[in-house]
C-alpha cells in the first residue's frame, strides 16, 4: 500500500493540515518524514495530522510522528492528530503513544478548536 500525503497550509490561522491517505509503514515512512519536516519548517503554530484516510500505521510511522512531536514541542509549536480510525487508535492506545498530543475525533472538533484559537489570537491583538 502506498501513502498519499496532501498538505494544506492556512497561513492566516497558522495551521498546516497534513492529510494521510493509505499506509504509513516502513516503506512509506521515510518519504513522509521528509514531507512532514518540510511542513514543520514553515514554523506554523499548529500542524494537524489528518488520519481520516489512514488505514495502516506501523512502528516506523509512529516513530516519524514521535520525532515530529518532540520537534514541535521544542519549538513551542503544536502537533495534533485528527480523525483516527479505530484500528489506528488501537495502535496508539497499545503504545500509549503521545499521551499529551491533541487528538480531534473529527473535523468539527478541529474546526471548533481552530476557531477558538483564532479568537484568542485576535483578543491578544
Amino acid at each position, binding site marked *: *500500500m502506498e501513502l498519499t500525503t496532501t498538505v494544506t497550509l492556512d497561513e492566516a490561522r497558522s495551521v498546516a493540515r497534513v492529510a494521510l491517505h493509505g499506509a504509513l*509503514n*516502513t*516503506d512509506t515512512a521515510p518519504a513522509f518524514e521528509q514531507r512532514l519536516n518540510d511542513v514543520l519548517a514553515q514554523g506554523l503554530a499548529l500542524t494537524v495530522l489528518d488520519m481520516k484516510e489512514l*488505514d*495502516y500505521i*506501523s*512502528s*516506523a510511522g*509512529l*516513530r516519524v510522528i*514521535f*520525532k515530529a*512531536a*518532540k520537534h514541535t*514541542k521544542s519549538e513551542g509549536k503544536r502537533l495534533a492528530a485528527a480523525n483516527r480510525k479505530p*484500528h489506528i487508535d488501537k*495502535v496508539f492506545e*497499545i*503504545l*500509549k*503513544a*503521545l*499521551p*499529551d*498530543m491533541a487528538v480531534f475525533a473529527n473535523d468539527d472538533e478541529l474546526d471548533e478548536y481552530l476557531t477558538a484559537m483564532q479568537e484568542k489570537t485576535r483578543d491578544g491583538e
Partner: protein
Amino acid sequence: MWGSITNRLILVISLTIGTIIAIDMAIDYRLSRDELLMRLQLESEETISGAVTDLETLLDSVESSTGFLATILAQREYSPEGLEQLLRDLVALNEDIFGSAIALSPGFADQSGGFAPYFFRRDGTIERANLAAQDENYQTKDWYLEPIAQGGPVWVEPYFDAGGAEVLMTTYSVPVYRSDTDGNRVLYAIVTADVALQELREYMKRLRLGEHGFGVLLSQQGTMLVTRDPANLMRSYKDAIRKPQVIAAFEAMIESTSSGRLAGDEIACAAIPGNCRARVGVLETTGWPIGIIYSQDEVLAPLREYQLRTALVSVSTLLIMALAVSLIARRLTAPLGMLAEASDQLAKGQLAAPLPPATGRDEVAKLVRSFSAMQRDLSQYITNLEEATASRSRLEGELAAAREIQMAMLPQGGSASEHQPGYTLWAWVRPAKTVGGDLYTFRAANNQLWLAVGDVSDKGVPAALFMARAISFIQQMGATAPDVALASLNDALTAGNDNCMFVTLFLGRLDLSSGELCFASGGHAAPIIGRGGIAQELEQTTGPALGLASDLTFPINTAQLTPGDRLVLYTDGIDESFDEHAEMFGEDRVIACIQEGLGLSAEAAGEQIFSTVDSFAGNAPQSDDITLMLVDFRGKHPGHQHQTTFTLNNDLNRNCTAWLEQRLEQAGVAPDVIMEMVLVQEELVTNVAKYSGLPASETVSIALEVGSAVLSLEISDAGKAFNPLTESERAELGADIDHARVGGLGVHLITQFTSSQRYSRENGRNVLRVTRNLPSA
C-alpha cells in the same frame, strides 16, 4: 589476673597450709596450756607443801623449845637469875625465836608488879626487857590470858609488840602449872616464845612465785600475816580483797583446808588483769591458812611467746612457699598463655602462629606438642579442603555446563512448546540431578510428526552420557518405520556397551493428515490417550529395553487418533516418584492426573501434572528424572499452509505484506486480524532487515499456517543470532514526550497482537514463531 592458675595455686595452697598450721597451733596451744597449768598445779602443790613443811618445822621447833622450857619450869625451882639465864639461852640457841618471856603468876612473883623478864633480838644482839615494868600490866595481855583460858599452849593472834620488841609478831604461850601444898594445880607462869612475822615473810619469799605471784599467810582469824602488799598486813583478808566472789572463793578454800587437804581455785588477779590460780593449805600447828597465788598469764607467757614465734616462722614459711609456687606455676603456665595466644591466632586463620618451645616431658610440653601436631594437621586439612572445594566447584561448574549442553541436545532446550495448526506439542524434561538420562525429541517432516521419549537406566553423569549417545542416534535416524528404527538403534547402542547401560524408549510416528499413530516401545511405559474427557493407556506390545543385546526385533503398534485427542508420553520418574512416606505416585494417579487436565491447554495441563507430582512428593527429593510430553492432535487443514522466501531488498515489506494479506484473506481471516498480523509481520521482517546483518541479496523465510483456532507465523533468517523479544530496544510506554524514546515500539506491537511468541536458534537460523488465536467461528 586473679583467675590465673598461679594465683589460684598460691591462694589455695597458702590457705590450706595456713589453716593446717593454725589448727596445729591451736591444738598445740591447748595441750601445752593444759600441761603447763597441770604442771603449775603440781608445782604449786609442791611449793605450798614445802612452805607448810618449812613453817611447820619452824613453828614445831619454837613449840618444842618453849614446851621444853615450860616442862622444866613446872618441875624445878629457879632463882630469878636462873630463870633469866634459861630465857636468854633459849633465845640465843633458837634463831627462829625472836624473843621469849617468862611471866610469873602474880602469886609466885617476889615483886609486887610481878616478874616477867623478856629477851629478844635486836640488831644481832639479845636484849632484855622487863615486861613487869611497863605501864600496862602484862597479866592483861592476850598472850597471858589466852593460854589460861584455854588451859594449854596457844598461838596468840599476831599483834604489834608495842613497848617490847616493837615488831609485828605472834606468840606461842604455854601455861606452866604446879601443885600447891594441897595438891591443887595452880598456875605458876606463862612461858612465851615470839616469832617475828618478818621471819615468816622471809620464808614465804623464798618460794619461787614469779613476778606477780605471791604467798599469803593468814591467822586463824583471817588477819593477813604475809601478803604481797605491806599495807595490807595485819588487816583482815576480807577487808583487803573486797571482791565478794574472791572472798567467797577464799572462804570456800579455807573451809575445805580444815581437813588438812590442799585446796585450789581460779580467781581474778588482784593487781593485774587476768586470772590467777590460788592454792591454799593450812599450818596444822597454828591452824593458819597458807596460800600461794600465781598469775596464769605469767605462767602461760612463755607459751604465748613460743606460739608467736611459731606463727612468725609459719608466716615466713608460707611466704617463701608462695614465692616458690608462684615461680613453678609461672614456669608451667607461661607456655599455656602462649598457647592460648597461638590458638586465638589460629582461629583467625594464621596457621603459622608461633608456639612456645616444648622442652621436657611434662603435661604442658605434651600439650604443646599435641597443639603443634594439630596445627600441622589443620594446615594440611585446610589445604586439602581448599583443593577439594576448588575441585568440587570446578566439577559443579562443569556439571552446569554439561547440563546446558545436554539440554541443548533436546529440541527447544528441554522445554518445548510447539504450536502448529495440526497439533500442539508440549514437553519438559527435568533431571533429578544436574544432568540426567531422560530424553525426548520430536520432528515434523512430510506431514508426519516423529516423537520419541526415553529413559536411560540410572541417573547422573553416566546416564547423561548414554543419553547423549542415544539421542544423537535417534536424531540421525531416517524416516524408517518405528520398529525397524528401534532395532537398528538397539544394535547401535549395544555396540561397545560394556557397562550394560540401557534405555527404555518410545518411538512413534503420527500421520498429521490421517491421525494414524505407529509406534514401537523398547520396554517403555505405554502412552496414554485422552479422548472425550477420559484418559486411558494405549494397548501396546513392547520389546526389550535397548542396549543390552543386539539383533532383536521390536513389535509395531498402531493406534488411530482423531482430532481433539491428547497423546501423553512420560518416563517412570512420574509414576515412580515417592512421597515422604515412601509411597509411590503410581500409574493410576498419572492417568487420573492426565484426565483432570484434559480441559486445559497442553501447556497448562503439563504444568499441572508436574505440580501435582511435586506436591505429592512434598519434601522428599526428586528421585528420578522426569519427562513429560503432551501432544494435542487437531488434524490437518490442507491448503492453509504456506511458505515463501523474500529477498531483503527495498521491496521486502511491500512483498511480504501483499503475500500475507492475500493468504489470510483466502483463509477467511477477519480484516482487523489481517491488519494486525500484517503489522506484526512488518515489525518482524523489519527487524530481520535491520539486525540480521545479512546483505540485501539474502532472504528471509516466511511460513504461515492457518488452522481453525490458531494461525501461526514463522519468520526465519540465516543472520547473526538475534532474539528481538529480549534483545531489541523496548521503549517504556506512557512516558511523556520529553522523556519518551523514539524507537523500540515494534516489540510492543508484536506481543500485543499475538497470543504466543517464541524465538529459537535452529540450525544456524533465527526462528521466530508467533501464533494468534482465532475467534471461533
